[in-house]
């Protein structure tokens, strides 16, 4: 299916993404812009960006393919991926935004006041990020090969280059615009051909291939082996895994405040629900006209192949090109989000410690290139290993590590650093073990094998239990400022309260050259300085290492000028 129009479409998407990014670049001036888009992104734009980043190739191509192949039970994937945002909304969105944390390690350090917990979270972010990036790169290579016959590395390299070009100059601001653009592109790319397909299907004389559709295994739920366990495990992984994905969490930092974060998430629910109906329809249409793809093992390409099944000539080519553009946008936006979040963590935690005080932006850029290069290398090394299932398992890993850390950290004062680390080790170990064993096909029979295919129903409760039990056992080492942290996480921003002085942005700001304290010295800052100085002498009980972000001289503490009490 060599298709010149598709090549043109993919090139156009790349150029358009770069152009939108360059436009965003003009808006991205300061250091703060670079990392977090100055947190001034409106709810609708932000919601589009969140959805655009979230809807990966697994959503654009994978869902339709799975529904084509396996039917009604796979409807839990789009439902779970959307419900995951509902749970993120009700438990995490506003407190996470109010924490001021940019990454999950930031949150771990703020809440648990432990550098060890921070490092453990950093390693986990890198692991989850790479686990999610490799399937994106592989998928891009496969898609381009399907469309154009080019070797796999062409598509992989193309995604890598465009991602780098987007992230390197503009940082978060341009990325926000690009991802918002990608959401609407993906929606249109699925919606427009759908009208044509439905029209063609309705106009076809005679009954379509009904035989393939009304098969009990496909149309009725829970027909497979261990279906109830597998379904519930999938539900648990997707419902609770979304909140623990590093690239999802980073996006919340660009909301203006906690309420804006909630409203943006509500808008995300609407955008995702609207989108996810489309791949389901593609899967069903595919069952009518292209059920032979299942036997051929090419169910994943059903979205791209449907136009040529119902049309021929330039119409088919044009629609295929549009779908190819959408698919490529899906690879780009998710990879970009992952690269930004992983590179953010690498530049903060791994590089900085080694290299001392370098220029913040330069470190971030170096990390970006390093992350992209490593994932490209791993993609090439793991060629031939079936990694499609890895995306599903990533949700299980996130649900058994960061999800309990966030939920217990936000809603329970009793969580200690040791408890959180123990829980992440147990839940992460189990779910990562499942990833390794399924990826490399270490087949085991019986219930153990079933659990390893879909580990969430076991690993998530186990991780929660470990965190609670170890925390209770180590109550004595509870974080010192937990009461202040709770005020910070839960009190609305317009109420003027002392929220402590943790400020991850300061890391970057201190590294960049001109630091201008925003607020003049006032009694308020005086209070915060004294509390920070107090913290500086008493913290770091476990390793003697100090919260870098808690040291004195913090003039930009959470009491910003407009809300500062006038006394």
């Amino acid at each position, binding site marked *: 299916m060599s298709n010149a129009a598709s090549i043109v479409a993919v090139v156009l998407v790349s150029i358009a993404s770069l152009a939108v990014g360059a436009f965003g670049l003009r808006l991205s001036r300061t250091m703060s812009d670079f990392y977090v888009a100055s947190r001034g992104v409106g709810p609708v734009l932000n919601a589009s960006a969140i959805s655009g980043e979230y809807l990966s190739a697994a959503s654009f191509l994978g869902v339709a393919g799975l529904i084509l192949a396996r039917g009604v039970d796979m409807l839990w994937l789009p439902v779970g991926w959307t419900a995951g945002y509902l749970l993120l909304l009700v438990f995490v969105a506003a407190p996470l935004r109010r924490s001021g944390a940019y990454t999950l390690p930031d949150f771990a350090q703020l809440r648990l006041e432990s550098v060890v917990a921070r490092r453990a979270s950093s390693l986990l972010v890198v692991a989850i990020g790479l686990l999610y990036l490799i399937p994106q790169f592989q998928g891009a290579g496969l898609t381009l090969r399907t469309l154009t016959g080019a070797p796999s590395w062409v598509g992989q390299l193309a995604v890598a280059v465009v991602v780098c070009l987007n992230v390197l100059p503009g940082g978060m601001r341009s990325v926000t615009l690009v991802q918002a653009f990608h959401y609407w592109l993906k929606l249109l790319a699925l919606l427009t051909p759908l009208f044509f397909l439905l029209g063609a299907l309705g106009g076809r004389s005679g009954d379509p291939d009904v035989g393939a559709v009304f098969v009990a295994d496909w149309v009725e739920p*829970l027909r497979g082996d261990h279906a109830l366990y597998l379904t519930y495990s999938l539900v648990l992984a997707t419902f609770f895994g979304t909140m623990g994905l590093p690239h999802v969490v980073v996006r919340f930092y660009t909301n203006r405040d906690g309420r804006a974060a909630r409203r943006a998430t509500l808008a995300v629910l609407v955008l995702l629900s609207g989108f996810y109906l489309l791949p389901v329809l593609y899967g069903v249409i595919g069952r009518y006209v292209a059920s032979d793809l299942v036997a051929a093992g090419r169910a994943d390409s059903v979205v791209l192949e449907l136009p040529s099944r119902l049309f021929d000539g330039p119409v088919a080519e044009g629609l295929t090109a549009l779908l190819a553009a959408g698919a490529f946008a899906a690879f780009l936006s998710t990879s970009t989000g992952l690269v930004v979040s992983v590179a953010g963590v690498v530049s903060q935690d791994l590089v900085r410690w080694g290299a001392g005080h370098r220029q913040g932006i330069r470190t971030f850029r170096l990390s970006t290139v390093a992350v992209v290069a490593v994932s490209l290398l791993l993609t090439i090394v793991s060629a031939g290993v079936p990694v499609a299932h890895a995306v599903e398992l990533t949700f299980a890993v996130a649900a058994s590590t960061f999800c309990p850390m966030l939920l217990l950290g936000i809603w329970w004062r009793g969580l200690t650093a040791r408890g959180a680390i123990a829980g992440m080790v147990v839940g992460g170990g189990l779910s990562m073990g499942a990833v390794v064993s399924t990826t490399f096909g270490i087949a085991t029979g019986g219930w153990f094998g079933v659990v390893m295919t879909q580990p969430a129903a076991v690993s998530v409760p186990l991780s929660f239990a470990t965190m609670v039990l170890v925390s209770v056992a180590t109550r004595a080492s509870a974080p010192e400022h937990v*009461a202040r942290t709770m005020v910070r996480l839960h009190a609305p921003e317009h109420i003027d309260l002392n929220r402590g002085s943790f400020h991850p942005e300061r890391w970057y700001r201190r590294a960049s050259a001109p630091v201008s304290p925003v607020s003049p010295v006032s009694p308020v800052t005086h209070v915060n300085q004294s509390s920070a100085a107090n913290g500086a002498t008493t913290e770091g009980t476990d390793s003697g290492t100090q919260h870098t972000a808690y040291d004195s001289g913090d003039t930009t503490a959470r009491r910003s000028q407009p809300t500062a009490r006038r006394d």
Partner: protein
Amino acid sequence: MTSSEAPEPGADARGRMPSAEAGRPRAGAGVAGDPRSRTRVRVTSPRTSAARTRSVSIASEIDEQTRLGEVYITSLMRSQLRLALTVLVILASTLGLLPLAFRAVPAIADIDLLGVPLPWVLLTVVAFVEIIGLGWFYVRQSERNEDDFSDLLEGR
């Protein structure tokens, strides 16, 4: 604007408690000390409004991490957690029970709605509408909880 080290008499005209003014610089440093040892100072200045007085005092109770301040924050956390758990329970008892319902009553799959089998309708349109509805309900209620909390702090 007055500095906190030396409260001017003018500050009292706005109805602030002197203790709140003087207590401010110690608030942060007081983390190490016992918050209950804070000395109470009698209000001697004329109060323009009782509400203003209370607003300062509850906020500073929270700032100084007294037991009372913790009670206020805990009440906010509880109301928000109760709301979040309500949403979770509703979700679990509808969407979450679907697999069990499918297993217990396989006949569900035979029911058609406009030619589409019921499980397909439930797992697409109905599920998404429910998720959006719950999200909308949560956003509205949680903002109400926060408004109640800030009203409480401002003594309205």
